[in-house]
């Protein structure tokens, strides 16, 4: 088969196909960037959510957990933590988070350990608000069940 293809033809496929692929990708990128604010409810990104995102990053939470399925696979998915651990109730989730973060690391022998991050109560609330916002992102109804 390949005998019939010359080097020039192959090069044209590369340039033509490559250019086409780039144009399609750039086009879709513009559209996606345009739509993400609505899909992610960008209007609900409060100061507290922004602060929570920063705490998430500054402590490298993604080094163990996944968020919407992306990250490390050592610890539970947290994109839907609000629904799983807070039952969808803001106050309940915040108070769960206060207790949970303060209790780390758990003393259960040989259970995977989460470090103690020494966050202030306000910071924990910020983190909770960030996870509440994340849980509401329109992401095609993933994960399949509450366990994430």
């Amino acid at each position: 088969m390949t005998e019939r293809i010359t080097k020039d033809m192959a090069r044209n496929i590369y340039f033509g196909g490559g250019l086409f692929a780039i144009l399609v990708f750039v086009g879709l990128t513009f559209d996606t960037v345009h739509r993400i604010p609505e899909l992610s409810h960008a209007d609900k990104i409060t100061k507290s959510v922004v602060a929570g995102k920063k705490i998430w990053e500054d402590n490298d939470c993604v080094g163990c957990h996944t968020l919407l399925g992306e990250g490390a696979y050592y610890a539970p998915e947290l994109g839907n933590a609000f629904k799983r651990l807070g039952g969808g109730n803001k106050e309940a989730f915040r108070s769960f988070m206060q207790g949970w973060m303060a209790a780390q690391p758990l003393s259960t022998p040989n259970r995977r350990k989460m470090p103690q991050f020494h966050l202030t109560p306000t910071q924990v609330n910020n983190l909770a608000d960030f996870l509440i916002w994340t849980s509401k992102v329109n992401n095609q109804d993933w994960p399949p069940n509450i366990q994430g």
Partner: protein
Amino acid sequence: MKYSSQMVAKPYFIFALILLAGEILFGLTMSVQYIYGDFLFPELPFNVLRMVHVNLLIVLLLFGFMGSTYYLIPEEAERELWSPLLAKITFWVFVVAGVLTILGYLFVPYAELTKLTMNDLWPTMGREFLEQPTITKIGIVLVVLSYLLNVTMTVIKGRKTTVSIILLTGLFGLAFFFLFAFYFSDNMIMDKFYWWFVVHLWVEATWELILGALLAFVLVKLTGVDREHIDKWLYLIIAMTLIAGLAGTGHHFFYMGAPGYWLWIGSIASAAEPIPFFLMILFAYNMVKNRRIQDDNKIALTWAKGTAVVGFLGAGVWGFMHTLAPVDYYTHGTQLTAAHGHLSFFGAYVMICFTVISYAMPILRGRPHGNGPKSQKVELISFWLMVIGMIGLTLALTVAGVMQIEMQRMPDNAHALSFMVAQAKIAPVYIVRSLFGVMVFVGLLTYFYSFFVKDARTVS
């Protein structure tokens, strides 16, 4: 060695191999933590180990690519490197920046590190694979720029071949897409979207161009096949890479908050992503079949064929397993993802570095016909130890992934096991994974040993 400036490649190769040893050791440590959660805790929490593990991988591959380029470009351009001195300076700058960053990860709590490096001025930290302090990221840009300058000037002033042009295209792409590491937004979904511009468009687009060019170079040298023929194959491979790989980025946009059309576009485009890897197998075996010279460096050819095959398995087969949106709905972010990541990075990118090193290193050490038979035999053993070890640990992670999906993802809310309970049930599989990991490390040590095997021929 035709040009004395090719010698600058040597420290790059050696350092890449040292980093690989470190990478595997950290991987092994993490695999123990997967079984015994208290291991090395709280001194070295999992996220720190993982950060070091993946950052070492990225940096070792960059060193490998740079060394390979510095070896290849003078020979392709038929002239000395534009500035061997700059290549040496770049090496040391990159070494110091890399080592300091890794030490920072290990000895400073990450939150402290963000303060210490003034991350707030331009927050780029705390994202998977891009954990480096902003200052390190700027350092990487400077290193890559000086490297690109050096290589580009050499090509401009010398002979231009398809291999060197495609390599340069890949390298410019690498540099360009890294710039998205500096993007940040208060909206996590925007962050995630552009994050893939670095991650996916590196490993599933621009790096494949680099991989193709390096593989073609080694095949030209070892088989003596006509360049017209090799160039044609290379163009076909990278054409398919771009056609499938760019829109194929969509397979990461299924469930992270991007529009729903990516479910279709990502599935269809990325279903074609195995094609360039399959072409690479045909390419390698075809060139070997039609070879015009019998090079004594047989092991380099083994690595070249191995890269094509294991790259196809890891990136092609293991990638395809979960690239269709309805499948990924259940597999997204499970151990199956880890299985794919391990075999694809090893098969495609670590192995191409081994290929170039196995070809070039004997020449740099004054053995133009490759290492002696004894040394090659040791290296062949190391090849199989590493390849079987990696495939074994990938299979173990695949089993772990399937178990996780069955217990945690497939059942409904009432019956699904929690993440931690499911993980506890998978523990025996993680032991198997660790054992195969040890095998990989033994393979690497065997590889190191092959450098010191004394052969009658190499002495004469």
